[in-house]
């Protein structure tokens, strides 16, 4: 980010005075616009815009084989791609590092622990035939335009895309022996909706100077010393946490950030839920 010293001081000073460049206070979000069903080929998709940040998430369900150590569950993987149109630095392989970082952070925030506790998606609902066949969900995030706070935007987009996702009904033929591949019948017009109510929301607190802000723009992010992203579910439990930026933080500040993020997340979940509801209503009436 090529900013002059004056611009830098203006951003920092604004944050210190609780009045940011775009008129927001430190803990205010930009308005969030959600559209669902933007990609007809996918099982579920959503587009989220926050200011000039613009991301798309899509969910594709494919038949797969359960992993050997959790044979009664499906699998979920998350990939993020930063489009070269989003920023000049993403051209060529420039976006790879950020893409990996975002993918890892999203997996950590949304998929829970190894045993499946804290996962936003109930993996056992993806089972078809135990040990033989399950649904694999491929969640792809695409960053179209980047103006900061990508992780939170992608988190919301994935939550919206999952609530938009219909998984085809599958009939497994009974009576197949242990060795054979099970015969199945995939329905063309019957779908089950995924339960996305447990999918947590991600809140990133970006520390600039002595204070931290939510929903930072790209200018604000360029001035950050560190940022803590937390995923919080409806019950207010922390489901994942990652820290970015090199500077160290005092443990007491982190604990303070956790409680602030927890508080903010409950308002954000309500906002996002109503936006998703409105988007789906629009989609079905259109």
């Amino acid at each position: 980010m090529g900013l002059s010293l004056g611009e830098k001081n203006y951003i920092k000073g604004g944050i210190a005075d609780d009045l940011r460049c775009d008129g927001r206070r430190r803990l205010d979000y930009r308005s969030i616009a959600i559209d669902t069903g933007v990609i007809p080929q996918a099982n579920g998709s959503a587009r989220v815009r926050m200011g000039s940040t613009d991301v798309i998430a899509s969910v594709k369900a494919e038949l797969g084989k359960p992993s050997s150590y959790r044979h009664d569950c499906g699998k979920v993987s998350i990939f993020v791609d930063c489009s070269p149109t989003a920023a000049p630095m993403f051209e060529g392989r420039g976006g790879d590092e950020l893409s990996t970082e975002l993918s890892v952070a999203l997996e950590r925030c949304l998929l829970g622990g190894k045993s499946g506790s804290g996962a936003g998606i109930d993996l056992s609902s993806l089972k078809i035939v135990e040990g033989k066949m399950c649904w694999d969900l491929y969640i792809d995030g695409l960053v179209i335009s980047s103006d900061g706070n990508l992780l939170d935007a992608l988190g919301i987009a994935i939550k919206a895309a999952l609530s938009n996702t219909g998984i085809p009904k599958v009939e497994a033929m009974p009576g197949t022996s242990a060795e054979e591949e099970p015969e199945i019948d995939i329905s063309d017009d019957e779908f089950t909706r995924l339960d996305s109510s447990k999918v947590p929301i991600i809140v990133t607190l970006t520390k600039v100077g002595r204070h931290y802000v939510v929903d930072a723009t790209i200018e604000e992010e360029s001035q950050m010393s560190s940022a803590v992203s937390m995923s919080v579910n409806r019950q207010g439990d922390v489901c994942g946490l990652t820290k970015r930026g090199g500077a160290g933080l005092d443990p007491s500040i982190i604990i303070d950030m956790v409680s602030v993020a927890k508080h903010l997340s409950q308002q954000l979940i309500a906002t996002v839920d109503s936006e998703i509801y409105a988007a789906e209503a629009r989609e079905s009436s259109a």
Partner: protein
Amino acid sequence: MASKSGTISTYSPLFSRKNPNFTNGVRSDGRHFHECRLAFLRTGAVNAASGSAYAEFGNTKVIVSVFGPRESKKAMMYSDTGRLNCSVSFTTFSTPIRGQGSEHKEFSSMLHKALEGAIMLETFPKTTVDVFALVLESGGSELPVIISCASLALADAGIAMFDLVTSVSVSCFKDDLVIDPVFEEESCQDGSLMIVCMPLRNEVTQLTVTGEWSTPKVHEAMDLCLGACSKLGDIMRLCLKEAASTLQ
């Protein structure tokens, strides 16, 4: 021979997986929940490097070499601060099931993030410090061991740092917190929390949490990790002093 074997598909025979059991608050390796594994640390493991360290925490064995500060890659632009380049790889026989032995991108970037805040990059402008880690055997909690070992290797190489960087993780099993988990524990944990900190400055440079945690649980786990980190810092400092005194 090697090319021929590349085309043959092989599998590991099915050995029974051990699940950790906690009877009477004792873990499968005889430790209590809040007890770390015995740590063995030594600097100067690799002669060819500017600095290096070997760390052994139970069955987790790691070597880290530090090269430089040396000339940055030709393609790199001028920079008035130094660069840090990290790479973590595993040997193919380190894991219970044979691995690929390629670079672990996620750990490499985590190691970079954990260290960059502690190194005084402005002390070696235009140059790069390379930190390479090789996991010889993975017995659980690899990343924290790699990070601690890397900071010891950086100190051995004489790279200026604000403080030693130490790292410890805990696993969560329902209501129990288990510090410094082994491989079996990690593979069925409900959640995990890893802290990277500079103990003398009381600063956290990296923190990751997975799984579901209530706020008081996060506090408890952080306190546990920070306590263990500062003890580990003391051990590492002792190791460096010992190395320096044998040199004289």
